[in-house]
């Protein structure tokens, strides 16, 4: 498989035993779910809903791991920690922006993968 900057599909390849239909199913699920989670985090930040922001970041974390988006792992953990402590709202906003930017690049790479395996 081609080398990508944001994603690493080694886990997904191994999990699906390189079954392209299954890979496409999980990638499509991620492409549907992750943008919603990012939008939810942004609105929770805007309303200072820290507890729920922590939960949303927490649930996004394993999804990023399945797509091998390791570069955002520390960022999402920091959002979870800061939101759990209800502190550093400005830093949380910057971290959410980083996640959004990183995910946008990952989405593009994942769409490319879908095209190639479909």
């Amino acid at each position, binding site marked *: 498989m081609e080398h990508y900057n944001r994603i690493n599909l080694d*886990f997904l390849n191994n*999990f699906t035993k390189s079954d392209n239909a*299954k890979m496409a*199913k*999980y990638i499509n*699920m*991620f492409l549907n*779910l992750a943008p919603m989670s990012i939008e939810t985090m942004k609105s929770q930040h805007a309303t200072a809903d820290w507890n*729920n922001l922590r*939960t*949303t970041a*927490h*649930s996004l*974390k*394993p*999804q990023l*791991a*399945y797509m091998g988006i390791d570069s955002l792992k520390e960022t999402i953990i920091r959002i979870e920690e800061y939101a759990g402590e209800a502190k550093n709202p400005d830093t949380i906003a910057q971290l959410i922006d980083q996640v959004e930017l990183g995910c946008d690049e990952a989405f593009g790479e994942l769409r490319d993968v879908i095209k190639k395996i479909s």
Partner: protein
Amino acid sequence: MRLLANYVTLLKKYLNIANQNPIQYHMKKEIIFIVDDEPMHAQMMEDHLRAKYPQFEIHKYSTGEECNDNMDKKPTSIVLDYHLDAVNKNARSGLQTLEHIKKNYDDVDVIMISGQDKIDVAVECMRAGAYDYVVKNETSFVRTEQAFERLFTHRNVLHELAHYKKINQILIYGMIGIIAVAALFWAFGVIG
């Protein structure tokens, strides 16, 4: 004569139990619930367990309430997410669901899953009656499978104990029967 017929029926029943393979006896009855509000993880867990255990009946629910409404399907084990309120903030949490299951259906084994790798959360779940605790990440599918293998081994040991207890009963009933027949023969002067 009727007493003798009843005795023979009882012996036949016990001999039938003694001939069963305890492992096969248990494995064919497994019904698994997956309760997780994260659709992707739930789907991956379902696919993984279906591939590993094609003979099992697997049902998937996204809330603790939905799981509770379906307990009449008599699940034998449940893979339960610790956070069940990521999507619906008013939903019952995984821990509350665990407590409800253990209070009302104590024989159902629960494997808890959570993105929390803090030991406090694991201890909290085990204290509430979870059979095992698995951290939600790339290894959670294999770890859940390993938890199931331990659970099945544990259940089979319990089942085998019950099985050998029944064999003991067969031997006791057999001895009683022999003694009773010998006593009858003795009473009618056949022996001695």
